[in-house]
């Protein structure tokens, strides 16, 4: 997995290490993401997938390594991190919508406060983003009035409203009831078709097979194997990959 710089790569993470006290969570991870590419990250819990994702927008501070996103050095002290983060959308397992705001309020907050839009501009963009996730008619609802699937789609709208260059999904469907997963995956598929570069940490193997350009298997803080969905799911080379794929396919 020697990473060569790829022209037009939107994310270049190299040699990422992360220590939590004595815990060595990431052990020198390289991850490149090309424009329009969808990379799927799989692996057992505790393998460092989420931490890797969170290092890319510096919700977690990498202990060492380098992260370039859209040509911006994320770890440089001179980088305006709040500005840089607008270009990296993130969607969380637990949605993390603001419960005291409507769906539209959730989507427009950063548009107004970070992107500097007026309330009218932000509302227009917010309504458009909600329409993209199929929730045009839910703008005035608070998160408590929405289903889990709808909440997660509002969270996606909140991220894409800022027109990010890349989207990070951290187990976006893991806390959803099975019947609600489809609507979220549908929105992600639409995003993918629009050419959004995406890194998805998830166990939705069906979605990975259909939509991913590349699948990365992580274990114990390192990338064990990566390849096309067919390579990873049908013909994994590494023993650990095979064991993991076998396990999840039994379910």
């Amino acid at each position: 997995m020697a990473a060569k710089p790829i022209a037009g790569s939107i994310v270049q993470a190299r040699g990422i290490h992360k220590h939590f006290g004595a815990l060595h969570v990431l052990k020198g991870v390289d991850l490149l993401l090309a424009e329009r590419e969808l990379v799927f990250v799989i692996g057992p819990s505790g393998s460092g997938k989420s931490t890797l994702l969170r290092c890319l927008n510096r919700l977690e501070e990498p202990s060492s390594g380098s992260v370039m996103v859209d040509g911006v050095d994320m770890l440089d002290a001179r980088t305006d991190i709040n500005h840089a983060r607008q270009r990296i959308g993130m969607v969380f397992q637990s949605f993390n919508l603001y419960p005291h705001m409507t769906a539209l309020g959730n989507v427009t907050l950063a548009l107004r406060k970070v992107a500097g839009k007026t309330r009218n501009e932000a509302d227009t963009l917010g309504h458009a983003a909600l329409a993209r996730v199929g929730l045009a008619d839910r703008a005035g609802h608070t998160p408590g009035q929405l289903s889990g699937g709808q909440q997660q789609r509002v969270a996606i709208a909140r991220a894409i409203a800022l027109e990010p260059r890349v989207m990070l999904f951290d187990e976006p469907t893991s806390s959803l009831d099975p019947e609600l997963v489809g609507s979220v995956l549908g929105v992600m598929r639409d995003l993918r078709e629009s050419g959004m570069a995406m890194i998805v940490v998830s166990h939705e193997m069906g979605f990975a097979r259909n939509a991913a350009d590349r699948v990365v298997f992580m274990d114990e803080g390192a990338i064990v194997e990566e390849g096309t969905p067919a390579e990873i799911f049908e013909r994994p080379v590494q023993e650990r990959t095979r064991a993991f794929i076998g396990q999840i396919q039994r379910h």
Partner: protein
Amino acid sequence: MNSWERFVDAFFNVKVMAKYLPDIAYGMLVTVELAALVIAAGLVTGLALALVRSLGFRPLNLLIIFVVDLFRALPPLVIIVFIYFGLPAVDIAPSGFVSTWLSLTLVLMAFSEEIYWAGITSIAKGQWEAARSTGLSYGQTLMHVVLPQALRLTIPPLTNRTIAITKGTALGTVVAVSEILGMASSAVSNSYNPSPLTMGAIAYLILFFPMVIFGRWLETKMAWKR
């Protein structure tokens, strides 16, 4: 006089009440003034301390925690007496009104800081992360995402605490503040009849009953569906 008549004469003497009504009314005015100043200053400084504490600057936080614990531990009357009778020794001589105001403000500041702080820390980490991931700064996240939620959570305990401490304005009577209890007490000494105390109690009810109701109303109004 039978015992019933004696009771009425002692606590509901209409003549005495009529005579001292203006005094009690003046006392109410002073109490309202004092209470309003305590509430405003106490709740604002408490919030300010909680916000400073959220910055996580350790030496400063230890100082805040020390100050807060100090004023939560000391009886308010001790603080009042200390300021009113103690400070003149260093040539600062605050009036009884200022001494009482400052003492109760410090106590309300201390208790409200703890309540605000509990509210801020009870907001899920995911709220911070979601906001920061969209580019909001620390301050913007605090102001637009965390505080609005935290403040709603703090309203019931804050209301209770505010009422409890504001009632402490009656302590001002020991440093000659002419608030309700002070006015009622001197009326009792002058008239040899305790009826002014009844008026004082009624005056407190008139002031604080609406506060209790207001607190209840705020609680329901501020609730939102999760």
